[in-house]
């Protein structure tokens, strides 16, 4: 019973949150709000998908929010100089994987810790973005922000983008050797190397993917907001980590998946914020709720980890007398 609850905790928690807000407010469970929720959750889902991947390899990407800001600032700057919107978006998006590759190099080849590398990047990228944008907010032309409201087959464009990103990452994760090897890398890098896995290449690709996700998430959010503010993307990496862990990823690596895990986690976080909004909750309550969500995520991670440790107890690697 406990095992069932722990194993299915992500989905059960999402259902509980949805039911809770539906009781709390009659305006929560309406078709209109459902579309809102999906649209608002689109960029968070993309970011959580990338973060899940990094967590699976037992790393973390703290720079995601700052990278979002840098991409947004670059895009805004180009739009202000009358660059074609599509061109601007593509050029700005390229910054994401480039930064990701830089992180990957430092982590995989220089052997730096992911926490330190991406923490440095958190400050560096935001600083670069602020310098770039002269710390002023930028309003974006109508031709760009229109995309956020565009619909295809009745579904808003941001939801399509999130769907495609999730689909691609899901395929990479479950249907390619690279994806499967990432689980081995996260569980025990030394053992993975002994088993013939190219650990460094896997880490490089992982951080490049995470950077690409941050860039796409930035553009998706940008089309909805229509403006770049100096606080754009701030603390989003923590929401993404919370979402990934709520969705079943482990901070200790080797566990988690993009679909359904990261999607469920991101939708849970998005539902909480949307629900509070619909209920007109006191704004001072928000940080408390965020804290509660993060705490719950860590609690689940701890419980799942204990289970994994129990099942792996007999599998420790220890060579008697080798010392």
């Amino acid at each position, binding site marked *: 019973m406990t095992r069932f609850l722990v194993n299915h905790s992500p989905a059960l928690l999402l259902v509980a949150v949805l039911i809770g807000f539906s009781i709390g407010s009659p305006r929560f469970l309406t078709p209109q709000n459902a579309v809102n929720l999906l649209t608002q959750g689109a960029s968070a889902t993309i970011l959580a998908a990338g973060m899940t991947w990094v967590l699976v390899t037992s790393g973390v990407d703290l720079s995601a929010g700052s990278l979002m800001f840098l991409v947004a600032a670059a895009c805004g700057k180009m739009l202000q100089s009358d660059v074609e919107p599509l061109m601007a978006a593509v050029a700005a998006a390229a910054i994401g994987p480039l930064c990701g590759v830089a992180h990957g190099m430092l982590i995989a080849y220089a052997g730096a810790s992911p926490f330190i590398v991406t923490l440095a990047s958190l400050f560096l990228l935001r600083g670069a973005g602020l310098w770039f944008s002269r710390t002023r907010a930028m309003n974006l032309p109508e031709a760009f922000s229109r995309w956020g409201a565009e619909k295809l087959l009745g579904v808003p464009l941001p939801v399509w983008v999130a769907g495609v990103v999730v689909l691609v990452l899901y395929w990479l994760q479950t*249907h390619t050797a690279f994806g*499967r090897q990432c689980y081995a890398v996260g569980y025990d890098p030394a053992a993975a190397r002994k088993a013939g*896995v190219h650990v460094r290449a896997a880490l490089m690709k992982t951080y490049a993917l995470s950077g690409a996700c941050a860039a796409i998430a930035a553009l998706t959010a940008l089309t909805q907001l229509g403006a770049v503010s100096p606080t754009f993307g701030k603390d989003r990496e923590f929401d993404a980590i919370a979402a990934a862990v709520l969705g079943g990823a482990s901070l200790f690596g080797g566990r988690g998946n993009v679909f359904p895990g990261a999607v469920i986690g991101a939708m849970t976080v998005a539902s909480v914020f949307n629900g509070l909004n619909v209920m007109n909750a006191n704004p001072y309550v928000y940080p408390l709720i965020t804290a509660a969500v993060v705490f719950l995520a860590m609690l689940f991670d701890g419980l799942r980890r204990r289970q*994994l440790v129990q099942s792996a107890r*007999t599998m420790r*690697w*220890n060579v008697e007398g080798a*010392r």
Partner: protein
Amino acid sequence: MNPLLECRKIRKAFAGVRVLKDVDLQLASGQVLGLVGENGAGKSTMMNILGGVLPADDGAMLLSGTPYAPRNPAQAAAAGVRIVHQELNLFPNLSVAENLFLDRIPRAPWGIRRTTLSNQSREILRQVNLDRDPWTPVAQLSTGERQLVEIAKALGAGAKLIVFDEPTTSLTQPEAARLFAIIDNLRGRGLGVIYISHQLDDVLRLANDVLVLRDGVRQACGPAQAFTIPLLIQQMIGRELDHVFPERRAAIGEEIVLQLRNVSRRGVVDDVSLEVRSGEILGIAGMMGAGRSELARLAFGLDPLDAGTVQLGGDMLAVPTPARTVKKGVALITEDRRDDGLLLNASVDDNMLLASWRDHACAGWLRRRAAKRAAAAMADSLKIGGALDRPVVQLSGGNQQKAIFARWLLRKPRCLILDEPTRGVDVGAKDEIYRLIRRLTDAGTAILLISSEIEELLGLADRVAVMRAGRMVGEFARAEFDRERVLACALGQEALA
């Protein structure tokens, strides 16, 4: 006939201690070689050399007639030598198929060739009689099934020689029977198998030939039919006594310092009771995995008890924790100095003083100078040479061990738990550690001594208790000390003693 594996005069020493002395070994295809010996006889070292974990200092190996000198496990595997370790090397978070083919997953432009992977996995799993869906996560398999996956992995990679290291320790009876059938099958298919085990009856049943190692020397080798269990035990023991153990100078005290009653921890320690008096040494004998170190951890409070009580100097500890037991004057010195004891990059004297800063504080104010003086005096009396401000990692194994002893001597412990205190230290340092232990008991410290060297136990202890599979299975008083009987008891062959 050309043997599959031939080792000639393999030598290996660790920090000057010779653990393999000119060992010869031969194995033909389609044969099983049983490798037996006491703890520390050199079995594991031999296996690590075969598997490319360690290089040999000297000697030559030939695999199918060609020189074989693997520099790492990957090279050994590529040459067709696989080791199935007691603790398996699988990823529980991946499926069976993914574990089998992790480094060579069949690819296609659209991703993994799942059907190919499934079929190839099924094919290999059939060879080890494991009827499981290849997409089952390894976490859901039993230990026995995981072992089969490990064997399947070796077969899939084209192994010619498979080494099993204590494979039955964590298996149930039927699982072990299934493993034996598979080993028979491997032999039938012309693979070579080296089977290392303390289960002597299994070895005699499975092996074509048996090789007995004793103190790193090839003691006996011959067809399994030529051996019986008592004969094997006789060959395993009887190392020459190269130490003079210091005599006790003070009598054993009256006070019971450490008392365990019906202590259990699921899966490792089962209903163990013991008591140690002040100035007494209680030795614990047993084979690897008998639960001795786990018992020490329970007594010290490192792991929670499932049942039973720990009593220290007459005070019952409901929930023992290291903080509480240390306060009662207990100290634990483990075999793994690097992991459990020393702060490798801290200085020698800081390491020595770690547990006794409080004794050198005056109203909360640390008297560093006095503390350092005390450490220096202690280092002097233990003959730890050199400057005390260099990092402890620069000391030899023996001196590192002495630094840990110094830490607890400064605390003046009432009860000391020693887990393999002389593993990996050279002969000279061993003698000094023996003298230290004696000095402590003369001062009234109660000592629980865990050791794999029966000589050490018989030379120092006042009583020796024997553990097997988590239980206390025998106790010998000093008058009844007998190496053969203690070893037979530890191996579960009391009837023969």
